[in-house]
């Protein structure tokens, strides 16, 4: 049998130390050892029974139960005060074979893989690469679990691909303690696996587009995501280059995403008119005199074995790069500035983002590689239609100059997601984000809660429709926030939650984050009848 270690605790914290938060019990489930003689299928079934048992125990005590992975989220989305379940050791991996594909499936079996919830992006990439495959996109780094990624909408800046949840084709979710609470969900319009595949795992099959789309970005509240079927693609290479681009040029590209006549002028390569795989702008809000922005261009290239002979090993280069994730860039800049936060902010007014004109070529997993712990960090990230990206950046940068905080901005671009509560809801969503280091009251700056409230107010006052990244810092208690962001989709999401979870189970899978955002609680009966 799978074993669960239960530790009594008083508190828990995120990786970036955005808490601490109170906690009673911390649960860690480990798979049966290889010496058990069980097949991976049997281990998977075995651990599903264990999770059902743990859900029952939480329900018996009227306590909440929440799965967590790598705890990279900075909001309290992953936290619940009673029982938190650490699932990173649940990392079985399965290939999908030809005979296991649904007869009406459009998917190639060799592109489908099924991963248990605790698989981290880095190990998934390695597993896939050994089979000539790659994830379609990841976040800026690789430490998150696959279940954590999709539950919170982790994204990169691949504006023709989307977010991590957008290549998910099936979900195995445990919605309660009973045997029929083990469900496998996929789109009715795009089935992937044969019925008997999940019958082997004692899972009940639900083919429903609405329920699937709602469960994709489920905020950890649609039950316990046990397994995820994803679609991958053949290995590819990425060519990364960061250069300074005149502000007007960089922002015009952001507002239009039209690269048809654009020449990025990358040495030894001609990318004129080529649409990049990834486009990202970095910006120091405090230096108004900087005439250029640092822009990261990444282009897709066909994979070939000996690319390292031509371009070198990308990993040592990654360690030298400054423009990795945004918080890393800020720390690198701040290293050379005074340590006292108000003085640091003053120094940023004359700081110019550094040059970094180096070519790197590598696989997706090598370009978006490890991000070490950068200290206590904060991040606020707003999604807007890319046509509003330059206006949004200008407004939020102005706000930040009026109410300074120790951070800098970036803009990333993501294709629209089909997930009901995906913050990448616009045709092309521009995620305008500010990352930085945490500050304290003694620094005499605006509080993070007030700062993020003002960000919401600025966008509302300027009639810019927006969303907020679920895993980032925000005033999630802002009145009517989620309804403002998602409108009718909130009811659709709740309706799907109603159909997946019984009322007692909705309580088990509810936390303070869900209460703050008013997404908890069952949908009134009349609303349950909406189409």
């Amino acid at each position: 049998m799978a074993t669960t270690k239960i530790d009594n605790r008083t508190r828990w914290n995120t990786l970036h130390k955005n808490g601490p938060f109170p906690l009673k019990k911390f649960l860690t489930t480990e798979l049966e050892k290889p010496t058990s003689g069980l097949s991976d299928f049997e281990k998977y079934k075995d651990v599903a029974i264990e999770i059902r048992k743990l859900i029952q125990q939480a329900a018996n005590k009227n306590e909440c139960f929440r799965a967590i992975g790598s705890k990279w989220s900075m909001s309290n989305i992953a936290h619940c005060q009673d029982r938190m379940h650490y699932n990173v050791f649940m990392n079985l991996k399965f290939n999908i074979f030809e005979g296991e594909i649904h007869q009406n499936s459009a998917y190639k079996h060799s592109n489908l893989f099924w991963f248990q919830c605790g698989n981290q992006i880095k190990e998934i990439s390695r597993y896939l690469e050994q089979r000539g495959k790659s994830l379609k996109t990841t976040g800026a780094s690789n430490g998150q679990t696959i279940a954590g990624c999709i539950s919170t909408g982790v994204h990169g800046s691949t504006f023709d691909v989307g977010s991590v949840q957008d290549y998910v084709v099936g979900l195995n979710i445990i919605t309660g303690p009973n045997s029929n609470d083990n469900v496998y969900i996929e789109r009715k319009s795009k089935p992937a696996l044969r019925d008997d595949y999940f019958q082997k795992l004692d899972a009940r099959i639900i083919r429903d587009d609405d329920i699937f789309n709602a469960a994709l970005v489920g905020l950890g509240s649609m039950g316990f995501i046990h397994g995820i079927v994803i679609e991958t693609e053949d290995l590819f290479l990425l060519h990364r280059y960061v250069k300074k681009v005149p502000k007007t040029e960089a922002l015009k590209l952001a507002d239009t995403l039209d690269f048809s006549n654009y020449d990025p002028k990358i040495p030894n390569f001609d990318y004129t008119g080529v649409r990049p795989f990834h486009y990202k702008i970095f910006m120091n809000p405090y230096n108004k005199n900087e005439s250029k922005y640092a822009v990261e261009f990444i282009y897709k290239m066909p994979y070939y074995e000996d690319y390292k002979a031509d371009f070198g090993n990308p990993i040592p280069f990654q360690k030298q790069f400054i423009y990795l994730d945004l918080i890393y860039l800020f720390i690198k800049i701040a290293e050379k500035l005074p340590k006292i936060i108000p003085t640091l902010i003053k120094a940023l007014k004359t700081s110019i983002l550094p040059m970094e004109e180096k070519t790197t070529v590598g696989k997706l997993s090598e370009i978006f590689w490890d991000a070490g712990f950068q200290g206590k960090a904060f991040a606020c990230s707003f999604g807007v239609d890319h046509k509003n990206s330059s206006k949004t950046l200008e407004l939020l940068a102005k706000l930040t100059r009026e109410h300074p905080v120790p951070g800098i901005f970036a803009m990333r671009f993501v294709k629209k997601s089909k997930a009901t509560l995906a913050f990448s809801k616009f045709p092309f969503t521009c995620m305008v984000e500010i990352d930085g280091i945490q500050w304290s009251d003694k620094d005499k700056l605006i509080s993070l809660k007030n700062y993020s409230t003002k960000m919401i107010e600025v966008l509302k006052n300027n009639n810019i429709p927006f969303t907020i990244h679920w895993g980032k810092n925000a005033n999630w208690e802002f009145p009517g926030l989620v309804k403002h962001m998602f409108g009718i989709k909130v009811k659709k999401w709740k309706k799907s939650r109603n159909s997946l979870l019984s009322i007692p189970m909705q309580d088990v899978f509810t936390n303070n984050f869900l209460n703050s955002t008013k997404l908890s609680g069952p949908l009134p009966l009349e609303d349950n009848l909406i189409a």
Partner: protein
Amino acid sequence: MRFINIVVCFCLMVALSSCYSVRFQVEQGQWEPADTEREDAYSGYNVYTLDTIVTRKITTGAHYFNISKCPSQALHTVEYRSTFGGVLLNAITFGRKKKVKIKYVCIKENSM
């Protein structure tokens, strides 16, 4: 007095130069994670520490010892720390005793 100063400076130089650490890490392996509250480079990693003195015996042969506490039986990171005390111990025992201070992180089980 001048001689004493020179000796003190020399000792300080030796002491300081013998205190360092070196970290080796594989590029593509998945580290074994842990939910801890540490705030250093190992935040999120399950770190094992080995602080011991290895005594060379006639039967030992080559200087190695086994790492048995690693569920995957594969290493992700090894950080070796050299201290002045360790160098001194090695010197005064003519290499018979070695102070070993390492931190290591294993590869996550089932991740390869």
